[in-house]
């Protein structure tokens, strides 16, 4: 809960150089590195409606333009609309006489209503529906027909251009023209220009090109009525920008033309490490479930550091800092505090270069990640404050859920360990602040951790990987502001 409501006092350095709290980080068990939302690959897993929690296959979602077929949003305040029923007395139809008895029975009719802004589908004159879900009038984009005409036209031109190019290649006319200009590079317009200039474009001028009518300009421009400025204005009847843009296809100006909008779907995402393509998280398929099939969060693998308390940081002085370390794994952990500069550079482990591998790499540019290293950032670590790290290996016991009830902290004799309790450890540390630290500025100290990690992934048959690893992580501790 503290992670949700409080500022992030402790930030970890992700392998891509971003500073994030531990709850926002992932841990790839295959690369043994910390990853964050910024440096992993997100993928759309499944579509669902967040209102009715109904899954929708992605092909159907594509067909329905990512809209739920049964839920609607209020076009006025964007809250979800609810269906309300009324009893409608069928109109007495004198022509029908009393031939049909069932006609006289009251019928249930449904309309949509918003509980937030009290908008109803009756406000805009949509007739009530006899069925509870669906059947609401669908609108088409007023420009769709013209856009489709244009599309056919340009497709025909592109096709024709391609055909001409093929013909030319066949005839060994390889010269494309003297000038490389903008038209060549992006426009479709070379053929268009030729077409318009009346040059014999080609024998295969399709009907789409022949029948196409370009837009006609007119001298008339729609003017406001002469007395527009004296007309009464009622701002309540004119839609706001948000209301218009919610219906991007219609963009009504008058509030009377707002229509219920089918609710947009949401997606479940799975996340993948970019370096090794393994999944970091994979949600369960069921939209009602918030659980994951794969959930490699840093919170479950990396020792968690929390501040218990600290003395106000003063320039040129040494102040006390109490930290709590937690081992979230099911194995004993050796932790050593280091200065950030003592962390050994992660040498790029070049895989044994088999000819096949390198060949594959040179052929497959898509997977070549070496040049994306350009984007790798170095986190700017604070230097004004330094945590005096005693050079001692600390042992953190494994997580033991039963030990939670054992509430008798063991007092260790060591001068830096304040207490020890199951998989937790409280440390008494010193923070040395440089004399030049600016008073009033944020006091931040960097600290590195070396910790042992036991990999529980069953090793691949081919290469038995070592199970125990020594890993490093760097974190930045926020200690309020530097005092005067």
């Amino acid at each position, binding site marked *: 809960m503290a992670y949700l409501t409080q500022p992030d006092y402790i930030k970890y350095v992700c392998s891509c150089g971003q500073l994030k709290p531990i709850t926002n980080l992932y841990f790839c068990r295959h690369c043994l590195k910390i990853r964050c939302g910024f440096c992993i690959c997100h993928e759309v897993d499944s579509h669902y409606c967040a209102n009715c929690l109904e899954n929708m296959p992605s092909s159907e979602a594509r067909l329905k333009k990512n809209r739920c077929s049964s839920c609607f949003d209020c076009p006025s*305040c964007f809250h979800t609309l609810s269906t309300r029923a009324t009893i409608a007395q069928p109109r007495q139809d004198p022509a029908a006489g009393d031939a049909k008895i069932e006609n006289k029975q009251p019928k249930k009719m449904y309309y949509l209503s918003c509980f*937030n802004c009290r*908008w109803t589908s009756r406000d805009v004159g949509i007739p009530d529906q006899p069925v509870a879900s669906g059947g609401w009038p669908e609108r088409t984009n007023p420009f769709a027909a013209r856009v489709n005409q244009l599309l056919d036209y340009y497709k025909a031109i592109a096709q024709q251009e391609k055909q001409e190019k093929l013909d030319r290649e066949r005839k060994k006319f390889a010269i494309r023209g003297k000038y490389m200009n903008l038209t060549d590079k992006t426009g479709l317009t070379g053929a268009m220009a030729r077409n318009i200039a009346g040059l014999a474009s080609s024998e295969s001028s399709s009907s789409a090109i022949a029948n196409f009518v370009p837009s006609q300009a007119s001298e008339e421009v729609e003017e406001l009525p002469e007395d527009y400025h004296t007309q009464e204005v009622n701002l*309540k009847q004119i839609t706001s920008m948000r209301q218009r843009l919610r219906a991007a296809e219609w963009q009504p100006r008058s509030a009377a033309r707002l229509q219920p909008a089918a609710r947009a779907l949401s997606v479940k995402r799975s996340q993948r490490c970019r370096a090794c393509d393994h999944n970091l998280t994979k949600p369960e398929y069921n939209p009602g479930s918030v659980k994951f099939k794969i959930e490699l969060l840093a919170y479950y693998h990396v020792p968690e550091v929390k501040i218990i308390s600290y003395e106000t940081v003063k320039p040129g002085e040494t102040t006390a800092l109490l930290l709590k370390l937690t081992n979230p794994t099911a194995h004993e952990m050796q932790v050593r505090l280091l200065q950030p500069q003592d962390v050994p550079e992660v040498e790029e482990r070049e895989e044994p270069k088999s000819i096949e591998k390198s060949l594959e790499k040179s052929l497959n540019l898509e997977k070549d990640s070496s040049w994306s290293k350009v984007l790798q950032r170095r986190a700017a670590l604070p230097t004004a404050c330094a945590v005096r790290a005693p050079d001692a290996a600390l042992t953190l016991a494994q997580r033991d859920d039963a030990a939670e009830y054992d509430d008798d902290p063991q007092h260790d004799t060591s001068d830096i360990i304040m207490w020890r309790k199951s998989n937790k450890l409280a440390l008494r540390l010193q923070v040395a602040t440089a004399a030049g630290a600016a008073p009033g500025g944020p006091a931040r100290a960097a600290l590195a951790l070396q910790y042992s990690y036991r990999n529980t992934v069953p090793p691949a048959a081919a290469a038995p990987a070592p199970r125990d690893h020594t890993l490093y992580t760097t974190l930045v501790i926020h200690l309020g502001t530097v005092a005067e």
Partner: protein
Amino acid sequence: MSQNIKILPGATVCEDCTLEGDITIGGGTVIHPRVTIIADGGPIIIAEYCIIEEYSTIIHKKSDKQENPPKPLFIGAHNVFEVGCRLESSFGHIGESNVFECRSFVGVNVKIGSGCVIGAACNLTVTQTLADNTVIWGSEHHNREALEKQPSQLLQLDFLSKVMPNYHRLRKPNVHKRLPSRQSQEISK
């Protein structure tokens, strides 16, 4: 303060509420427990079929230019005051079929027509006049005009006036213009 509370027959008024000053409560109106109604600057008249829910407050404030005799604050029929709302008004007329949603606040200088909805937690402090059928919602006070008045809560009123006597002590109607209804007789027994 002079206590002059008139409860018309058919009204359901819980005992556990603060009523001060000259207050008239119309028939069919339901006042839940823990409601505060203070007629400080003049009488308050609440018409028929209103629902005033828990922790709502209606105050007729004293104003500087008080007339003599003080003008009443008239609250029309079919108004709904939801939980925790607060209405402060110096005098005047509040229309009918309004809904004051939960924790809404209506300040002194607001004139309210009929069929308005003041959304949950909306603080109306600015001097303004709400035309009929205005709906206000959200922290930014978005507003719109509804086509028709809010439907009246007759079913709910019916239910409340049946159920409330079973669980709460009620104040008895003290004005007997007409014959007291069968229900209120039962309560008084």
